Structure formats: structure tokens, C-alpha cells
């Protein structure tokens, strides 16, 4: 029965999330793993986040300029860019890029660890596999996605500024002033990072859950990787709507 199976899966995922939190103890080994994972899934995601941010900034500026030109309000293009990036595009697109780049790698790594007996070996050595293999990846994602979001938004704003001021010809002073007047520190800036942390946790948990429970075969790992990207992306979009609806009233 699909409903019963879905409920069981949801319950199992909830228990898994709880076991990850319970296994997160700041030991020296954990912190060493955390730093390694931050480098692997955070630092190595910087190039695609930078490129993604720059192109989104360019696209939104161009789109905004053309739409606002009709009403003679082109000086407000930075308002559109700022609010759009902080409230929606920055956290969501960074999370989606993160899911594609790092979420898939988390699922694949854990799936391969399952297929090559590494997870079994940890358990047989009386080492909690969740504490060793999952918890550092989870916290690395929670830390990295907000930082990557900041990087994405910064690059998008810089690209938007260059296009708006140096290509389109909008005054630089009014570009920054309009953005400063419209973007609120708590409502927009903080909301972006709160959303990013939630999305990072969601992406890492989904990827880790499907990878950790993958069938111990190459095909199982492949299925887990695909499932991680699809499920985490959909959940990020769903949570984005819920958070936006609750936050921006």
C-alpha cells in the first residue's frame, strides 16, 4: 500500500535524522572529519556557485531592466535584484547547485561505502557508522550552504552591478542606494541564511539517507544518487515555499 510505505519511509527518515543529531559529538576525530568534508563539499563547490551566481545576476538585471524600462523605473533594477536574490533566488539556486554537486557525491560515497563493506566494517569495529560517515557530512552541509549562498549572492550582485552600471548606464549611486533602501537586514539578509541552513540540512539528510540505505551494489549506488538529487531538489523547492509563506507576510 503506497500510503503505508510512504509513512514508513518518512518515519525511518525521521529516526535517521534523529540518529545523526545524537551521533554528533564534537570529538577531535569528528572535527577533523568535519574540516575535511567542508573542504570536499564546500570549497570544491565554489567554482560552480560563483559561475551560477554571476549568470543569475546578469539574467535578473537584464530581465528587470527590460520590464522596468516600460514604466520608467530602471533605477529600481537593483531593488528587484536585491530582493529577488536574498529572498528567493540566492538560497534556492545555491541549494539546487549544492544538491547537484555535493548531494550526489554524498549519496554516491555512502552508497559505495555500503557496497564495499566499509559501513559494515565500522559497525563491526564498534564504531557508529552514522557518527563516523554521516554526521560530519551533515554538519558540513549546514555550515557550507549558507556560506555558499553568501558567495552566490555576492557574485550575482557584482555581476548585476557591472551590467547595470557599466553596460546599461544606470547611475552607480542610485543603484546601491535603491538596494540599501529596499533590502532589510533581518527580513531579507537573515532570512536568506536561515533558508540556506535549512536547505543545507535537508539536502545533506536526504542524500545521506538514500546513500546510507542504498542496495549494496553498483546499481543500488546509481539509483541512490539519482534519488538523492531528485528528492532533495523537490524538498528544497517545497521548503522554500513554506518558509517564504511563513516569513514574508
Amino acid at each position, binding site marked *: 500500500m503506497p500510503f503505508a510505505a510512504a509513512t514508513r519511509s518518512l518515519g525511518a527518515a525521521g529516526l535517521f535524522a534523529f540518529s545523526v543529531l545524537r551521533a554528533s559529538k564534537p570529538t577531535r*576525530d569528528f572535527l577533523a572529519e568535519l574540516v575535511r568534508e567542508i573542504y570536499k563539499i564546500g570549497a570544491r563547490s565554489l567554482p560552480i556557485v560563483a559561475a551560477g551566481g554571476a549568470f543569475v545576476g546578469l539574467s535578473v538585471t537584464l530581465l528587470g531592466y527590460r520590464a522596468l524600462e516600460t514604466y520608467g523605473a530602471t533605477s529600481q533594477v537593483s531593488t528587484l535584484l536585491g530582493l529577488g536574490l536574498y529572498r528567493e533566488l540566492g538560497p534556492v539556486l545555491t541549494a539546487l547547485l549544492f544538491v547537484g554537486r555535493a548531494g550526489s557525491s554524498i549519496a554516491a560515497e555512502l552508497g*559505495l*561505502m555500503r557496497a*564495499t*563493506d*566499509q559501513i*559494515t*566494517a*565500522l*559497525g*563491526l*569495529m*564498534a*564504531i*557508529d557508522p552514522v557518527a563516523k560517515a554521516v554526521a560530519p557530512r551533515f554538519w558540513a552541509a549546514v555550515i557550507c550552504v549558507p556560506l555558499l549562498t553568501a558567495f552566490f549572492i555576492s557574485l550575482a550582485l557584482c555581476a548585476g552591478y557591472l551590467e547595470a552600471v557599466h553596460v546599461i548606464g544606470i547611475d552607480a549611486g542610485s543603484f546601491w542606494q535603491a538596494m540599501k533602501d529596499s533590502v532589510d537586514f533581518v527580513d531579507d539578509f537573515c532570512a536568506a541564511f536561515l533558508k540556506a541552513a535549512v536547505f543545507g540540512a535537508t539536502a545533506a539528510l536526504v542524500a545521506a539517507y538514500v546513500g546510507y540505505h542504498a542496495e549494496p551494489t553498483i546499481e543500488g549506488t546509481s539509483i541512490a544518487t539519482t534519488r538523492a538529487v531528485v528528492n532533495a531538489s523537490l524538498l528544497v523547492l517545497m521548503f522554500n515555499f513554506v518558509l517564504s509563506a511563513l516569513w514574508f507576510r
Partner: protein
Amino acid sequence: MPDTHDIAVRLAGVRLDRGGRAVLRDVSLEVPRGSVTAVLGPSGSGKSTLLAALTGELAPASGTVEVLGQAVPQRKRALLELRKGIGVLLQGNGLLTDLTAAENVALPLRAHTQLPDAVIDRLVRMKLHAVGLRAAADLFPRELSGGMARRVALARALALDPPLMIYDEPLTGLDPIASGVVMSLVRRLNQTLGLTSIVVTHHVHETLPVADHAVVIANGRIVFDGTPAELQATRDPLVRQFLDGEPDGPIAFDAVAREVAA
């Protein structure tokens, strides 16, 4: 009858199920301390299922499993405590691929002891030296041959000086020379460190020379329990079919046929 303290592993009337099907029935077995016991049987006979029961991965559907003088617990914390006393060499080695050989061996020491780094480093070198791989300490698993990786996994399994060692198919994928090295290590480590060893395998001819005790599993039960010499001399058609590698006999080759027969 041996004293309780002389027995490292005891199974009494054990039934083990997987996927709702009985894989092993009415298994009773005693493994004396200090011995090397070979658990033999064809592929799919339930040898690894038996191993899973010893390590607490699989709870018996009925009967009792005692390891190192205590019943295998179901509670996670107690189970982890018991596992610190059991070294397991897995068929797939289970070496963590992002750690070097030395880091792999250090893993249980870092997790379960408060020893300083210098002492752990020295212990790791000693364990690797015991398996003849001190020079490979800084190599990653992908840089090791199959036999070397198996020996690194053996050094890791021995890291905490467990009184009981379980080897799951230790010779799979190894050439004859590497097989000989691994089996002589099993015997030598058992003698020098005073271990109890259980070797789960279908490699009869490489294993029997180092074993003190042999058990054969087939058709979901123990069909032989005795010394290697008794095993070699047995006339039991079921055991003979396995030892001689005969395609026809009481052990069915086809899985469906076996289920029907059961």
C-alpha cells in the same frame, strides 16, 4: 565436556532466518578457546549468516548464541561493547578508501582508547609489521594489491588485541601465494597472540592444514563437526560431495531445487 571458560563461542539449538526463510536450523556448536575452527560449506549454505549471528548483526529466531562467555546482546550499547572483543576480517576488507593503511589500522584505536598519538602510531607500526606491511603504512587502499589489502584489514581487525578473530572468506580473490601467506598468518597470530579463530570459507584445501577443528554446513544445517583428519576420512556422501567438488549429489546446485527440497 569442556569447562565453560574453555569455550569461546557456543551455539545451542539456533535457527537463523533471512527474509522470512530459515537459512540455518538446529545449529549447535562449541568453539574451544585457543583453537582455529574452519567453518566450511558451499556458497549460499549460510556460513556468512552464521557469522552475522556471532557478531550480533542477526538475532537468532530461536536458540542461544554465546560469545566470550556472554549471550550476544540485542541492545546496541552492549553489542558495541562485545564487538570490541571480536576482530572481524570481512570478505571485502572494508578498508576506508579515503584513509591510508596506517590510518585504517589506527581507526579502532582512536575510537576506543585515549592513547596519545605517539603510542597509537607505534602500535599501528607494530600491527602492520606483524602482517609484513610496515613499508605500506602510507599507501591508500587503491594502491594495495588484493593480498596486501587483506593483510591491512587483518592488522586493523587485530588492532584492539581481540581474544576472538572471525575471518569471513579470507582467501576469496587471492592468488595461491597470497592465500598461503594469509593462512600462515592466521595460524601464527593465533598461536603467538593466544587468540581463538573462526575461519568461514569454502577453500577447503588451504584452510584444513591450519585448522584444529572443522565444521561443515550444507542444506541449512551442520553436517559435520570434528577434526580435519576426521573430515578427510569421512564417508558421508554429503560431505564427500563438497570435499571432492562433485556436481551431483545430495547438495543441490540449483537454488530453486534446494527450496523445493527443503
